[in-house]
């Protein structure tokens, strides 16, 4: 009796222990599902109109890095402007840590440079975000007008980014749908022709889907931007009639009366502006620009430049300094000169030039509120002048003079009608009107003058470095400015070559 009771109680104990084990084991299924609480998961996105609106805004973010937010983002201006004869740099005697920017100017850059990865990566981030939208938007169910608008913007930005890539890097992968697996992330390079075909198709479709500027929210691209891009592509490909046709469709824009007003943050997205990169210096927005600081001379106190607060040294600066050639290229009486370039004397500098266009002050160093002008109507007029001139059409001169002899320049109309002479004058006009807007290098490349012009400038620099703002006894490296065919394209960033062994580096790098 006692024995069996004992046995019984043992059984009870074991039963209790086993049921505790079972109980603790039973709560497992939900227990192991921990979804992130602080973010939306991708599977629940790209469904509603709001989702696509948010995604559209997100597409514009890499543009800010592409054109220069933060001190590491120098690809656009270093490769687009400083590489050309328009600007050089101030040799930074005391801080040699930014030499890869110098290399871009000196034509001794390589695939490890920060500029190429800045450009390459941000272009593809734009493309990746555009691809996400384009792959999902047709299946979503919401208002067709809004759908067209978002789709048009995605197509425009994808075309714009590919155009930037093909211009600077040549043959790159043409990714048009987002990858869904690891295997799909590796794609081969596409021929340049295929990339151009896609750019033209995307830009054309974007132009047909996008609303006019008047009915688009300020700062977002309208159909004028798509037509300008299309025109630009055709100009680059020397397809003059197609360029003319596209550019003539850029409607609803006009030139501002004051050249300086174009760059004033108070006039963002003005009547002349077709596509500009949007920045904001509100501290919590984290969206300020700071290229103006980069372009100043290196100063212990940038507060000596009117508009900037007194404060920390900009030892990272001294870039994109107007070259003596550019300064000399302004015609006497051109009102744009003083609005584009200023000079500073002091802190060891004697009349050192710097870009004035973007110097409109700052509230907190080094954050500025300047937007970056990508396309404005003056360029459309000059593109039209070029397209007409190449086709031997007399309207070329009219378009050229709309810019050249605009009251804001203070210059008189050009009367020359010889096609060859006019060709040079149009390029000269582009150089002045669009100075420091990252146009010059690509213009030199597409007109076939890059090698000759930059070789010549390099020789001048080596012969007289101090004229190009080098300190006494400092000279550029012997191998610099050895400009050749290879330099018409930039090297593909080293990272991409490593990740895809079938990738072909551009010739010569």
């Amino acid at each position, binding site marked *: 009796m006692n024995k069996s009771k004992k046995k019984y109680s043992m059984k009870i*104990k*074991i039963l209790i*222990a086993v049921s505790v*084990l079972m109980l*603790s*084991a039973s*709560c*497992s299924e939900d*227990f*192991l599902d*921990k*979804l*992130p*609480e602080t973010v*939306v*998961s*991708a599977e629940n*996105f790209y469904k509603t109109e709001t989702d696509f609106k*948010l*995604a559209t*805004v997100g597409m514009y*973010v890499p543009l800010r890095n592409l054109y220069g937010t933060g001190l590491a983002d120098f690809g656009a201006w270093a490769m687009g402007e400083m590489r050309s004869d328009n600007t050089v740099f101030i040799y930074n005697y*005391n801080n*040699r840590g930014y*030499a890869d920017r110098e290399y871009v100017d000196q034509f*001794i850059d390589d*695939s490890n440079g920060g500029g190429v990865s800045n450009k*390459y*990566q941000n272009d593809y981030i734009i*493309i990746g975000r555009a691809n*996400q939208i384009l792959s999902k938007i047709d299946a979503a169910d919401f208002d067709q007008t809004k759908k067209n608008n978002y789709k048009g913007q995605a197509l425009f930005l994808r075309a714009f980014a590919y155009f930037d890539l093909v211009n600077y890097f040549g043959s790159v*992968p043409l*990714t048009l749908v987002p*990858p869904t697996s*690891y295997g799909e*992330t*590796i*794609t081969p390079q596409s021929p340049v022709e295929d990339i151009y075909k896609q750019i033209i198709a995307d830009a054309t479709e974007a132009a047909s889907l996008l609303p006019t500027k008047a009915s688009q929210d300020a*700062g977002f691209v309208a159909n004028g931007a798509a037509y300008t891009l299309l025109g630009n592509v055709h100009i680059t490909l020397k397809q003059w009639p197609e360029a003319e046709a596209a550019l003539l469709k850029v409607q609803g824009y006009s030139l501002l009366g004051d050249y300086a007003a174009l760059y004033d943050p108070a006039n*963002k997205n003005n009547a002349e502006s077709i596509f500009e990169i*949007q920045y*904001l210096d*509100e*501290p919590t927005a984290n969206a300020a620009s700071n290229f103006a600081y980069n372009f100043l001379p290196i100063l212990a106190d940038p507060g000596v430049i009117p508009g900037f*607060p*007194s404060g*920390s*040294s900009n*030892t990272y600066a001294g870039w994109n300094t107007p070259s003596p050639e550019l300064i000399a290229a302004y015609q006497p009486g051109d009102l744009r000169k003083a609005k584009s370039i200023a000079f500073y004397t002091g802190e060891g500098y004697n009349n050192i030039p710097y870009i004035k266009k973007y110097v409109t002050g700052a509230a907190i*160093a080094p954050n500025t509120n300047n937007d970056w002008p990508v396309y404005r109507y003056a360029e459309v007029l000059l593109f039209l002048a070029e397209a007409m001139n190449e086709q031997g059409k007399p309207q070329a001169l009219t378009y050229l003079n709309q810019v050249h002899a605009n009251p804001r320049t203070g210059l008189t109309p050009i009367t020359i009608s010889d096609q060859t002479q006019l060709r040079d004058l149009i390029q000269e006009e582009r150089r002045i009107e669009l100075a420091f807007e990252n146009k010059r290098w690509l213009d030199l490349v597409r007109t076939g003058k890059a090698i000759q012009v930059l070789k010549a400038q390099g020789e001048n620099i080596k012969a007289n470095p101090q004229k190009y703002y080098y300190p*006494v*006894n400092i000279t550029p*490296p*012997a191998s*610099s400015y050895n400009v050749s065919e290879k330099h018409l394209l930039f090297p593909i960033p*080293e990272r991409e070559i*490593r*990740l*895809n*062994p079938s990738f072909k580096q551009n010739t010569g790098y």
Partner: protein
Amino acid sequence: MLKSLPIPKKYFYGLLLLFFAAANAFAQNSNITGNVKDKTGEILPGVNIAVKGNAGGTSTDFDGNFSIAAPAGSTLVFSFLGFQSQEIKVSGSNSLKIIMSPDTKSLDEVVIVAYGTQKQKNVTGAVQTLSAATLKDQPVPQLTQKLQGKLAGVQITQNSGIPGQGMTMRIRGAASISSGSDPLYVVDGFPLQGNLANINPDEIETITVLKDASSTSLYGSRASNGVVLITTKKAKAGKSQFAVSIYTGVQSIPSNGLPDMMNAQQFAQFKKEIAIERGQPVAPEYANPQQYGEGTDWLKAVTRDAPITNYSITYSSSGEKFSTSIIGGYNKVEGVLLNSSYDRISVRMNSEYKFNDKVKIGVNAAPTYTHNKTPQSDGIWYNSPSIIQSALLTSPLAPYKNADGTIPTTVGWEYGTAASPNWYNQVQIIKNTSSNVGLLSNAFIEAKLVKGLTFKSNIGVDLGNSVSDFFSPSTAGSIFNPPNEADASRISGAHTNQFAYSWLWENTLLYEKSIGSHNFDALVGYTTQAAHSESASMTGSGFPDNRVETLNAAKTIKGSTDIQEWSLASLVARLNYNYKNKYLFSGAIRRDGSSRFGSDNKWGNFPSASVGWVATEESFIPKNNTLSFLKLRASYGVTGNNNIGNYLQYANVVATNNPFNNQLLSGSSIAGLNNNELGWETTEQFDAGIDINFFNDRIRFNYDYYKKTTDDLLYSVDIPISSGFFNYTTNIGKIEFWGHEFSVSTVNFTGPFRWTTDFNISFNRNKALALGTANAAIYGDMTITQVGQPLGQLYGLQWDGIYETQAEYDSSPKHEGASVGSVKYKDINGDGVVTNDSKDQTVLGNTAPKFNLGFTSTMNYKDFDFTVVCQGAYGNKIINTAERFTANLDGTFNVTTDVANRWKSEADPGDGKYGKASGNTGPERDWASSKWMYDGSYLTIKNITLGYSFNNAGADYLKGLRLYLSIQQAYVFSKYPGNNPEVSAGAGLFSGVDNTTYPVPRTLAMGLNYNF
């Protein structure tokens, strides 16, 4: 039939016998009493006494007396940690006088293993145990510091001297690509989320390191990096004990290993010379370098000799039913860098209550408070104002204190180096503090259900709350960005608050059974653990001035919050079997389900098996004193590593806002790709070992060979950006590890002069078998990992001296900007030009040591004791990146004195190490090369301690008193020119790169242990 014994008055079980505490019975007992002492005549309380062949037993009381019922003719086994066990046959004599011989280990000793205990001699895995006795004396705040040099196959390095931080532990060369390589730390059965930094070392009773798969597989998906089991002190038998231990000392930076920077005169001379070499006018302040003397030694200016103090008070008491142990500790470490410190207040209370001889409960609770002051000391000067490197680079001409006693805030350009803050000021004005409150606590109930069957349920929680504050006034800055007090926009502040907890519930059933000579024990269990943490961080800007340092003064406050959670549900099972303690077998399995993995891969199984053969138990091997023990063992098993972040399997939508026409609009973008198949890393490990003892165990030799293959490495692989993303988190890649571990412990002398030595050496090797996209090599900061080669080799250009002459220049391959007198690199691919890319970059050296060794020598002579602990590594290479700046030829920074011997002309080429200061210095300064690479071998005398014990038995107020002197980090033998050859070790793929760290101080301390 079965009849329980009346429980003896002083019935008490030592911790190590917990599992054998089943009820016992035997017939015809006689009561044996006696007394136990050690060889010096000191009484030994707490010695376990058991009747051989029966579970249960008793232990000596505080006066060393015991009383146990035992049948005549049976054998009593006396065991005590740190002493050799003794077996005494019960004969007529009722009063026994036992003298126990000390020993570092005993084979009958019970060691803590995963989810239980096991007799050392029956262990079939690769397991090493250290007891508290081997960890005393060292004047250091962290437990891991005390383990250095003492464990075979465990590489423990001090990467930085920041007080209370900087330790890395790697078991068997553990390395992963992107997931953690730290072992799993388990304290009293509770797997920690973090490390051991904030645990008071005085609370530790034993540490067991589990190395092979059979010993770790019960920890399943967290076991790949090895497991460290920590047991904390429980009350030992005896009435009550009260002990105080105190040490206090002073820490200082050893003079060897510091870079030899130029003094004021040398620096002025350097500035003068480079101006002349460049054809520049010599600034008047450098025209006459003789006018200067030593100038400011900036490293000295920001450092100091600093005190360290530690108090520990232990009280323990145990009665028939209730026992408790309380340990209170206070540790205060002032750092050798000004304004750095570590304070810790800790309490641990471990209590047990026995309802009867079948059921007991226990509660352990250990609250801690720590406070850190950590100026931004480590790293490259431009990443944050890292004070150590920045100070080295600052002009010795500049004063850190003016003649009138005022402190300047700035070192201006006029002193010849880049404008910077006054580091002496900066180190004191930047506030960077954190306070942590933690509670590690668990409660258990253990019940013996029927004979041999024990149920245990354990609930635990690890709570932590930490608050960090940061404030940087306008008088702070960095190199090239000197302070500007008037510019209030420079002021910034931050505040972070984190609350985290993890809880554990574990239920296990253990069944032990012997049938004849077959001995079994089987364990099954179910365990769940979950963790939650939430944090809020705020940054402030727009402060009006430097007066108020809290964020309420900021005009703009930005904040964000985060929540992280994970959960783990698991089943465990193990079977141990032995036949006559001769043939040993163990099999174990854990099944883990984890929230961290993709929906297609939630559960994983981690099995292991091991066998052992105790040859000396065989009748055909004669038992003798020469060969006293021989065991062969082998194991194989699978373990995992889930040490990645949470939620990695999900692609998330992140905020990407953008302004349009001056208005910030909300935006969103997808931040990655989903991976439903994401799983743990799998490591298959084979281990074979041999344990041999000679001469009555006076020489003990252990050897282990292991080979493990880690597959499905968790890796955020780089993918081409043309996909729109930079990375994809997946299981890819495969690494092979193998190695040999030897340890030898010897008792060299016994008697009045006793000398023991412990030596261990381990050889760890690895090789990458497969990597990410296209097997693309993984690049770190000057490192490369490629298929077929060891992980994380140093990578860069091969330095080839200087183009010393025109002839050499003309006949050599050149890089962009090269000229006579400039740096020369090898043209590896032979294309005639040198380029700083993969064409000429090459593997420069291996960052993993060829072997690691440790050595401990302990001598006792009468009342004196003398211990030396050494640790070393041999054959690894380190790149000292600081030389990029400390040997900068531009004149921007202060430089090391040997830069004076740079190339100046063909006639004066210097010592061939540095090129000319004129021309293009970029390639010498910026291109990573073997020029900065050094042999990282070292042998460090980690600790020397000399102690004296006063044996004054009899006085009530003084049961024991010991005084000692101890030197920690006594001397580093190394050719490495940086300050710490242990820097950057254990960083896996990215080891071997020294970006300048807080120096590891030498500590001279005196201490006392007082028992009453």
